[in-house]
């Protein structure tokens, strides 16, 4: 578990460098990534990868928006590095492997699960944004 936390932090911060995120945001990038991976890793066995990805991305989105407000930087800096570990790379690879070996039923199954996870990540990102908007609209309405 400790190894997972450590590697996910390094991997996401490394991705921050690949995306040329500003230097002072790298630690936060790593933190967001670590948090997302922690949630995904600890829930994927009980909830299945799709719900786990959804939960993790919602959390990543909310934390990224908080960081964006706090540090006055675009949200995308934090959210994109954070969601990279959740991208179903391994499953996509396995799907492709089955396709190449002409095991079409298994390949299709894996490909569809990959799509489902990608969809969950998408929905999670948007959902967190919607939650954020609702939260701020409710909080700021009395002042207007």
């Amino acid at each position, binding site marked *: 578990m400790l190894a997972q936390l450590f590697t996910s932090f390094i991997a996401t911060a490394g*991705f921050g460098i690949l995306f040329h995120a*500003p230097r002072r945001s790298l630690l936060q990038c790593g933190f967001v990534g670590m948090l997302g991976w922690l949630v995904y890793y600890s829930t994927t066995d009980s909830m299945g990868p799709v719900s786990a990805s959804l939960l993790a991305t919602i959390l990543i989105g909310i934390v990224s928006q908080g960081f964006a407000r706090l540090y006055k930087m675009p949200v995308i*800096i934090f959210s994109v590095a954070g969601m990279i570990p959740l991208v179903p790379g391994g499953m996509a690879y396995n799907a*492709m492997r089955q396709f190449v070996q002409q095991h079409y039923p298994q390949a299709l199954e894996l490909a569809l699960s990959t799509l489902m996870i990608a969809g969950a990540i998408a929905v999670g*990102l948007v959902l967190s944004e919607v939650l954020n908007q609702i939260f701020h609209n409710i909080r700021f309405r009395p002042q207007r």
Partner: protein
Amino acid sequence: MNNHSYPTPEIIEVCLLAGKLMMQNGAETYRVEDTMSRIASAYGISQSHSYVTPTGIFFAINDSEPAKLIRIVERTTDLHKVTEVNSISRKISTGDLSPRAAVKELAEIERGPLRYSNRVQLMAAALASGCFMIMFGGVWRDFPAAVLCGGIGFAAVQYFHRLVKVKFFSEFSASFLIGLLAALLTIVGWGQMMDKIIIGSVMPLVPGLLITNAIRDLMSGHLVSGLSKGADACLTSFGIGAGVAVIISYM
């Protein structure tokens, strides 16, 4: 707020340059449009229309000036530049920057070097590959192999991209190289789980930003840019997949 105290062509120039810079460096479409209209309104133009796609931006204000178009040829990911343009647009909003000064600063950002040198990026990619391998259930014994494959793969994609300007080809050959190297290392005995090594090593090539952006654009109603970014992401994934697939099919 000073109403129309600056000539409109100058304002249009600032908006287009800012939009182009953001789009080139990986910002979301809605952010680009938002920034452009914010800059325009900060300079006293309340009505502006923009149509932003990944390959070009149209921008028009009121009816006195003709709409202008700017073409975007190459797109990379440089979130630092996006952040800098963002902070310039903030400065404009508070009224601290004239259009001429803004154009100058934006041009400086455009010419500015990449934030991290190639060597730092290469190290980051290699290290990240190793870490991803562990995260996806690999063993620590394979760490050096994944670092090596990831680093070489990332260097290859950059080198090939400079060599031929076809993105698909550079991604295909880089992932082919990764697959080949991982297979060789496994045969020699330096690596145990070829699958995990390959998955970890291709992660730096995966179009994560494009995928997020595409979805984000689609959901906020920018259908054209969403679809084209999605197509771009699919093509990249297909290139990576095909490169690895060639190796797997011979294993």
